[in-house]
């Protein structure tokens, strides 16, 4: 076999890959800081949406994460913002819940999900999530004896969001006084 036939393509491919890698490295370096800033801003904005009265939030890294709770943030007004991932119809329903120091929900948002479009996906609409604001103690859909009107034909999704809210309320009830 002719060595030139083997070596030349290999060298060209190596060169193209090297140039591509260098470009990607440079772009990654340049954009790392703006991306981190954007992520932080997005997180802060969504936390502000579930707890409008607070202005700054700090993650509690030593918090005990019960159930599907993934992170707990302490707000400057004594409240807590919790992110939970209860299981829905199509996977985890990422739910962010703001709970005041008095154990009352200040706001709730579904931040990420893979529920059915047009059905369970309606959990991201105000008609549904605003029902949670002001609730305390225990939350459940009307079918389970609670006050939350579920999304039509999407009881599983509605129950998942309720479960997420409940976990957040329970966490604050159990740990809220300690901080």
């Amino acid at each position, binding site marked *: 076999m002719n060595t030139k036939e083997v070596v030349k393509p*290999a060298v*060209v491919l190596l060169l193209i890959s090297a140039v591509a890698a260098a470009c*990607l490295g440079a772009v990654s370096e340049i954009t790392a800081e703006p991306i981190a800033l954007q992520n932080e801003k997005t997180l802060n904005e969504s936390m502000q949406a579930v707890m409008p009265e607070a202005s700054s939030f700090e993650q509690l890294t030593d918090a005990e994460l019960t159930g599907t709770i993934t992170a707990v943030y302490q707000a400057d007004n004594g409240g807590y913002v919790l992110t939970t991932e209860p299981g829905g119809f199509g996977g985890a329903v990422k739910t962010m819940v703001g709970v005041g120091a008095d154990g009352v929900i200040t706001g709730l948002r579904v931040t990420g999900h893979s529920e059915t479009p047009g059905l369970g996906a309606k959990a991201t609409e105000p008609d549904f999530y605003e029902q949670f604001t002001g609730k305390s103690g225990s939350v459940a859909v009307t079918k389970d004896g609670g006050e939350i009107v579920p999304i039509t034909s999407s009881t599983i999704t509605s129950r998942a969001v309720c479960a997420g809210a409940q976990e957040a309320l329970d966490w604050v009830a159990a740990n809220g006084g300690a901080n």
Partner: protein
Amino acid sequence: MANPIKILKNGIINENPTFVQVIGMCPTLAVTSSAINGIGMGLSTTAVLIFANLFVSLLRKVIPDKVRIPCFIVVIATFVTIIEFMLKAYLPALNASLGLYIPLIVVNCIILARAEAFASKNGPIASVFDGIGMGLGFTIALGVLGLVREFIGSGTLFDITVLPEAFPRTLLFVMAPGAFFTLACLMAALNHFRNKKKA
């Protein structure tokens, strides 16, 4: 060099990637649950297609035949990743609505197909026009699919409610089977008109 207008028309109508070549079906079926999703995916694909075609065309004499496919993939993946970084850093609003689809573009076979079938055999200017034409053809196809599915499935057009609340929505159309139904009907209608024209 072929006429740029002809190349554009070729991509949009004669060799429309979705309706005539039937390639890139995965994003076509998956993301067209609404008009805006379809158009967003189409436009981001167009951007990658233009750049990938340009660079493949510029490098066509340097790239040895034996390793052309790996070379094309490296070029395409590099552009997709750069666009992803840029969107995340500087256009967060656009990233929120399109972010999900950007990595999917790498595996869209339209881009590799155009690199192989057109850009590796033609000059850079013709290749850029081919990228624009094919990209627009793809965008229009996805936009129409999304429009039909959104209208029947959710009763809205571009998120604005157009059907009265009392009118029942056929939810099946925003789910996976609806994508197949809509695509089949559109394709059948287009073929019908094309055959009529020929006859």
